[in-house]
C-alpha cells in the first residue's frame, strides 16, 4: 500500500490525502456518531441495560421471588436510614415489603422496559412507514382519509387511552396473556404509529418531487420499486432518529402505567420470563418511602438513566444522519 514518498520536496501533497477512499453514507454517519461523546455514553448505557435484561437470571444475586418473612424492609448496607432494622450485606439495595431482594427485582425489571421499548417500536415503525408511504405516494382520496384518521388519533390524550385500555381489558383473555404485556404492546402501537406515518408521508411528498425519482419513473421503474428502492432508503435517516426518541417515550409510558397499577402484573411464578417492571416496583416503593426509599429510588434512577441515554443517542443520531440539522433543535 505504501507509495513512494515525494523525493524532492515535502510540499507536494500526497494524493491519498486529497482523494481518500469514498465512504458510504452509513459509514460517514457512523464515524460522526462515534465522535459524539454523549451518544457513545448513551450507547454504552443502552448496551448495559440490554445486557442486564438478557442475562438477568445469571446476574441477579438473589431469586427475585424468594420471600423472607423475617427480613422485610431491610435497608441497604450503605444507608441505614431511620429504621432500627439491621441491614444485611448480601441484600445490596435492601429488601421490599415481602423480604424480596430489591437489586434482583430491579435487574429483572430491565427486561420489561427493554422489551416495551423495542418491540412496540418495531411494530410502530412498520405500520407507520407503510401507511405513511401509501398516503404520501398515492395521495388524493386515500391520503385524505388516512390523514383524517391520524388527526383523530392525534387528538386523543394518549396516556389516558392507554389507561382506559389497560383498565377495561385487564381481565379479558388478551389482558391476561403474558401478564398483560401483549395488551400493553397493542395499546402502545395503536396510538404511536401516527407520528411515524406523518413523518414518512412528509418525506415521501418531498422526495417524490426530486429528480432521481422522476428519472426512475421516466425509465419505467414500477411504483413499488420506486417506493422501496428510491424513497424508503432516503427517508431512513429521520426514521431511525424518530425510533431513537420513540423508545424512551414507551419506556416512560410503561413506568407510569406500572406506577398507577395498570401496567404489567408482577408475577409470582418463577417460570415467567417477565417477573416485574420498574413501574410496578415504584408502586411498591411508594408505600414505604420512609422505611425503604431505595425500593422507589432504584427503579426511578434506572428509568432516568435509560431515558437520558436514549435521548443522547437520538441527538447524536440526528446530528450524524443530517449534519445540516446540527444544533438547530
Amino acid at each position, binding site marked *: 500500500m505504501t507509495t513512494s514518498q515525494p523525493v524532492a520536496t515535502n510540499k507536494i501533497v500526497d494524493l491519498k490525502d486529497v482523494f481518500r477512499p469514498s465512504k458510504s453514507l452509513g459509514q460517514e454517519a457512523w464515524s460522526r456518531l462515534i465522535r459524539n461523546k454523549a451518544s457513545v455514553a448513551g450507547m454504552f448505557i443502552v448496551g448495559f441495560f440490554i445486557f442486564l435484561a438478557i442475562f438477568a437470571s445469571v446476574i441477579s444475586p438473589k431469586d427475585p421471588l424468594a420471600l423472607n418473612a423475617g427480613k422485610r424492609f431491610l435497608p441497604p448496607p450503605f444507608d441505614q436510614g431511620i429504621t432500627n432494622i439491621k441491614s444485611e450485606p448480601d441484600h445490596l439495595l435492601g429488601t421490599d415489603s415481602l423480604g424480596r431482594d430489591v437489586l434482583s427485582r430491579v435487574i429483572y425489571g430491565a427486561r420489561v422496559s427493554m422489551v416495551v421499548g423495542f418491540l412496540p417500536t418495531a411494530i410502530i415503525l412498520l405500520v407507520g412507514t407503510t401507511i405513511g408511504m401509501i398516503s404520501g405516494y398515492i395521495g388524493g382520496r386515500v391520503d385524505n382519509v388516512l390523514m383524517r384518521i391520524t388527526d383523530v388519533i392525534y387528538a386523543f390524550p394518549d396516556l*389516558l387511552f392507554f389507561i382506559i385500555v389497560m383498565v377495561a381489558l385487564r381481565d379479558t383473555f388478551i389482558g391476561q396473556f403474558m401478564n398483560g404485556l401483549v395488551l400493553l404492546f397493542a395499546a402502545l402501537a395503536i396510538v404511536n404509529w401516527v407520528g411515524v406515518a406523518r413523518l414518512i408521508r412528509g418525506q415521501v411528498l418531498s422526495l417524490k418531487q426530486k429528480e432521481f425519482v422522476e428519472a426512475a419513473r421516466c425509465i419505467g421503474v414500477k411504483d413499488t420499486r420506486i417506493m422501496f428502492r428510491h424513497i424508503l432508503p432516503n427517508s431512513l435517516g429521520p426514521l431511525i432518529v424518530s425510533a431513537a426518541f420513540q423508545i424512551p417515550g414507551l419506556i416512560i409510558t410503561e413506568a407510569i402505567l406500572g*406506577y398507577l397499577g395498570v401496567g404489567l402484573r408482577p408475577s409470582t411464578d418463577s417460570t415467567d420470563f417477565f417477573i416485574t417492571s420498574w413501574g410496578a416496583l415504584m408502586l411498591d416503593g411508594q408505600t414505604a418511602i420512609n422505611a425503604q426509599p431505595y425500593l422507589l429510588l432504584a427503579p426511578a434512577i434506572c428509568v432516568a438513566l435509560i431515558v*437520558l441515554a436514549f435521548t443522547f443517542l437520538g441527538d447524536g443520531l440526528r446530528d450524524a444522519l443530517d449534519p445540516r440539522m446540527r444544533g438547530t433543535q
Partner: protein
Amino acid sequence: MTTYLIRRLFWLIPVLITVSAVTFIIMRSAPGGPWDTDPERRQVDAATAKSLAAFYGLDKPMWRQFYAYVIGDTNSQTHKYVCGLLCGNLGPSYRQRGRTVQDILFAAPEGKTRWQSRFGYSVRLGVMALLMAVFIGIPIGIIAALKQNTFVDYIALFLATSGISVPSFVLAIFLIIIFGAKLHWIDIIVDDWSEIRYWFMPMIVLGFGTMAFTARLTRSAMLEVLRQDYVRTARAKGLAERVVVLRHMLKNALIPVITILGPALAGLVTGSFIIETMFSFPGMGRAYVQAIGQRDYSLIMGTTVVYALLVAVANLSVDIVYVFIDPRIRLEE
C-alpha cells in the same frame, strides 16, 4: 381566515365524538358490571343490579346508550328527558351516588369559589407551572444563545436535555425522597392546599420539563435570529445591545415559543394526574386516578372527554395564534 376558523371549529365535533365513542366502546367491553369492583365476584345481587342498570339506562342496546350519552334520552324510570354531552351533561357517577360527573369535576365544595373545584385546582397548578416554565425557561434560552459554545451554554443545554428527557414523576420521586424523606424540608402529605407554599413542589415538578423545553426552543430560535441580516443592520446602526436583543432578536425568536404555550398548558393540565396523585393534590387528575381504582366508568369517560376537548382546543389555538403573531404566514384555503 373566518372560513378556516369555522372549519377548524367544526372539525372538533367529529374528533370529540370519535374520542368519546372509542372510550365508550372500550369501557363497555370490560368484563363485569360497573357495580363489581372485582369482576370474579358479584357484590350486588341480581335484582339490585337489574334496577341499577335500568336506572342508568344500561339495559338498552349499545348504540342507544351512546346516543343517550352524547345527545340525550328519556330515562325509563323517571320518564324525564335527560340531555347528554351536548348540554355539558357527563352523566351520573357510578360510585359517588347522587353526584354527576360534571359536579365532581367542576363544582366547588360548599362556600368555596369556583377555583376550588377539582378542575380549578388542576388549571391553577397548570398555569403556575406554565408561568414558571416561561419566566425561567426563556431567559435561560436567551442567555445560552448569546453565550453560545461557552460553559454557561453547555450547562444550560445539559439541564435542558435532562429536563426534557427525565419524566416528571421520576423527578418527583427524587425530590420527595431528598426533601421529604431525608431532609424533612417539605411535608410528604399535605391536607390543606389553601396555603400557597405547598404548591411550589408540585409546580416545580410539573413545570420542569416544559421549562427545559422552552429554554431549548428559545435557544435554537435565538441562534437562528442571531445571524440574520437585520440584526447586523441594527448593530451597525449603533443600537444598544439591549435594544438589539430585546426588540430585534427576541421579538422574532419568541414566535415558535409562543405557539407551543397552548399545547404546553394543555399538556400540563392533562399530564398532571401522576403528579397530583403523588402529592395527593385535590385536582382533576387525582379524581381520574381514583376513578380508575374504583372502576367509576362514567367518571373515567367524562374526564377523558374533558381532557380531549382541552387538547383539541389547545392544538387549534396554535394555528390561530400563529397567524396573528407572524404576518408571514397565510392560511391556505
